[in-house]
């Protein structure tokens, strides 16, 4: 049972042991007190955890699609690491949701067995990237917004959310710096890289207004000191983006927000066409072979 090297540990002949892939992981919150704090609505808390967890899960999946396609090995390693960090955040948040709503659903139940309308991620997380610049622009927007959100969530009245956020802040700081540096290199680089960066900003801009629109669940939980009102993140988001765009000699495009359906968007389970294809890839194996682990 003992191991002296990482290689020995993962090659042990024991098919119940897996590392960071597949299904059937042990509960990442094993031993953590996941009771719902007094005065907090468990269903609302679960819905909020799904929003933040789905953002991370879906963004992580998009990042994983870059593996074996990135322009250089170093970038591939970076994208894999960022995707893994977000997957870790998703695991904790989805597990938290299952404890908070009393159903005891596992992270796998949420990730693999929900339909498209049940996913609560913002649409920014789900769209496909046209090229590397597209990914960088989307990752910068996502990590800048999520870092501002989690930094405030460290003071949440829910101690589990606060703990997950405190860990996430450290990780997102690196994600934001990575994407900011690349946007500056692309924007302030060659004519061609600049052209791609400009197109990338134009593609991501319509997905930004949705990030700051609170749902009724967020309003109620923000009033209870559990959630963060996303509208409060706008000033910090604009300041950070402004600093990066200044260095990159790029301008933020003025574009109307991407319309939803009857005022509903990702947080209400109303997604873009890209989401169905993404979920098909994410879920088909788990659905075709129920209960399988790999």
């Amino acid at each position, binding site marked *: *049972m*003992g*191991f*002296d*090297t*990482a290689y020995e*540990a993962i090659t042990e002949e024991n098919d119940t*042991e897996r*590392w*960071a892939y597949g299904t059937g*992981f*042990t509960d*990442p*919150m*094993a*031993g*953590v007190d996941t009771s719902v704090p007094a005065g907090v609505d468990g269903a609302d808390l679960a819905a909020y955890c799904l929003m933040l967890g789905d953002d991370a899960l879906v963004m992580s999946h998009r990042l994983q699609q870059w593996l074996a396609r990135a322009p250089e090995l*170093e970038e591939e*390693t*970076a994208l*894999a*690491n*960022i995707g*893994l*960090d*977000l*997957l*870790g*955040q998703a*695991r*904790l948040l989805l597990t938290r949701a299952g404890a908070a709503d009393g159903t005891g659903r596992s992270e796998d139940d949420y990730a693999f067995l929900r339909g498209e309308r049940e996913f609560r991620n913002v649409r920014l997380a789900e769209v496909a990237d046209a090229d590397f610049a597209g990914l960088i622009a989307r990752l910068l927007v996502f990590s800048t917004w999520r*870092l*501002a959100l989690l*930094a405030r969530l460290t003071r949440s009245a829910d*101690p*589990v959310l*606060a*703990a*997950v956020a*405190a*860990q*996430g*802040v*450290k*990780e997102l*700081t*690196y994600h*934001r*710096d*990575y994407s*900011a*540096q690349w946007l*500056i290199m692309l924007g302030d680089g060659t004519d061609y890289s600049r052209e791609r960066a400009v197109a990338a900003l134009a593609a991501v801009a319509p997905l930004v207004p949705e990030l700051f629109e609170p749902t009724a669940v967020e309003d109620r939980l923000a009033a209870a000191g559990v959630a963060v009102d996303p509208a409060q993140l706008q000033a*910090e988001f604009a*300041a*950070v983006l402004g*600093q*990066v765009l200044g*260095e990159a000699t790029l301008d933020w495009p003025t574009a109307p927000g991407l319309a939803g359906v009857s005022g509903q968007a990702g947080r209400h389970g109303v997604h873009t066409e890209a989401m169905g294809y993404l979920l098909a890839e994410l879920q088909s194996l788990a659905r075709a072979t129920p209960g399988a682990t790999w």
Partner: protein
Amino acid sequence: MVTELAATELLTRAWEIAAAVPDPELPALTVADLGILREVTIDGDRLIVSLTPTYSACPALHDIQREVASRLADAGFANAKVRAVLSPPWSTDLITADGRRKLAEAGIAPPRSVQRAAGPVPLTLFAAGPPVTCPRCGSADTERTAAFGSTACKDLRRCRACGEPFEHVKEI
């Protein structure tokens, strides 16, 4: 008094067993060197070991938990419970002096101290920060070549003096 003494001795022994478990991703270091072993307590007749993940997705935590439980069982602590503690989050500041020495001996530059001021997290962009010393030749003339490395906790660097690449545990 006798039972209290016995309990203290048991806890010390259990701590030493848990503390000696190596980290699978940094095998030169033990969980105690890394600072992820938070505490060992007794609840009734059950030993409880608290471990903190380094990163949200630390893929080694599960293996470490299993190894700690297994070694404790071998030493007679039959139903020890190994639990995750998420708060406060792990920081590289928790790596012990011994751990830092072992990292350097393994050719991995130890982390610098974490600088964190109040208020919004600032962008660092291309700022290099305090120098990272080459674990091979000791020169401070080094540069970062990639912000992410072979594991979540490391980045890649190069020494301008001796020309060798090396890994560095990045500050979180």
